[in-house]
C-alpha cells in the first residue's frame, strides 16, 4: 500500500481533496487492491459511526420547555430568537429556490 495515498484516504472519503488529487486517488484505488480494501473498511466504519452516533433523543418535556422559552411572550414581542430562527429558515428557502419562477 502506498503511504503517499494512505495518508490522503480519510480526506478522499470525506470529499475534501482537490479535484486533481481526487482523480489521482480514484485511479490508484482502482489499481491497488490493498488501498481498495482499506477504503472499503473506512467507508464501513464511517457508516457505522453515523449510525451509532444517533444515540440520544431529547425528552418531550424538555423540548416543550425550550419551545416555551423561545416563543414570544405576551408583552415581549421583540427580539425572540424563535422569530429570528424562522427568518433564517425563510431566507434559506428563498435562496434555495433562486431564481424565482416567473409567471
Amino acid at each position: 500500500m502506498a503511504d503517499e495515498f494512505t495518508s490522503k484516504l480519510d480526506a478522499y472519503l470525506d470529499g475534501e481533496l482537490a479535484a486533481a488529487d481526487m482523480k489521482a486517488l480514484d485511479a490508484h484505488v482502482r489499481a491497488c487492491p490493498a488501498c481498495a480494501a482499506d477504503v472499503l473498511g473506512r467507508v464501513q466504519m464511517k457508516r457505522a459511526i453515523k449510525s451509532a452516533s444517533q444515540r440520544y433523543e431529547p425528552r418531550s418535556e424538555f423540548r416543550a420547555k425550550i419551545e416555551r422559552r423561545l416563543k414570544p411572550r405576551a408583552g415581549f414581542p421583540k427580539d425572540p430568537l424563535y422569530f429570528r430562527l424562522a427568518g433564517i429558515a425563510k431566507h434559506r428557502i428563498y435562496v434555495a429556490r433562486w431564481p424565482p419562477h416567473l409567471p
Partner: protein
Amino acid sequence: MPLFSQLYNFAHWLTQDRSEAEDLVQETYVKALRGFSGFQQGTNFRAWMYRILRNTFLTSRSGSKASATRPLEEEDQEQLPATEETPESIFIASSQKEMLQNALAELPVPFREILLLCDFEEMSYQEISDTLGIPAGTVMSRLSRARRALRLTLSKKLKV
C-alpha cells in the same frame, strides 16, 4: 425548532449525562438569543450554534475536567496490531453497535467531538474548523488521529 435534536444528541455525547446535556442545550439557546446580533447573516448558522454549545461545555465543570485529560499526542505512541483482520472487519462481522458507542464514549472529548461533527453531522472541514476554532489543516490531522484512536480502542475491546 431548528437543530434542537442534533444539538441535544451532541450535548449528551459531550457530557455523558442527560441532566447536564439539558442544561447545556438550554444555556446554548439562551446565549444564542442574547448574542444573536453577533451572528453575521450569510455565515454558517449551524457552525455558530455548535460553537456556542461547545464553548459553553468547555467552560462548564465537566467540560473543563474533560479537557484536562492526557495530551492527544500520546494516542500516536500506541501501535495497532499487524493482523490480517482489521478492527473494522471484525467489528462489522460482529455488528456490535453498542461496542462502537462505548468506544466513542471512551475517546477523549476532542476526538469524540470531531468524529461526531464529521461522520454524524457530515460537516465539511471548513465548518468543523469554524465550529472548533482550529485551522482546517488541524481538522484533517486531528480527524486522522481520532480515527486511529477509535480503531485502537475497538481492537482492545475485541481482544477482551
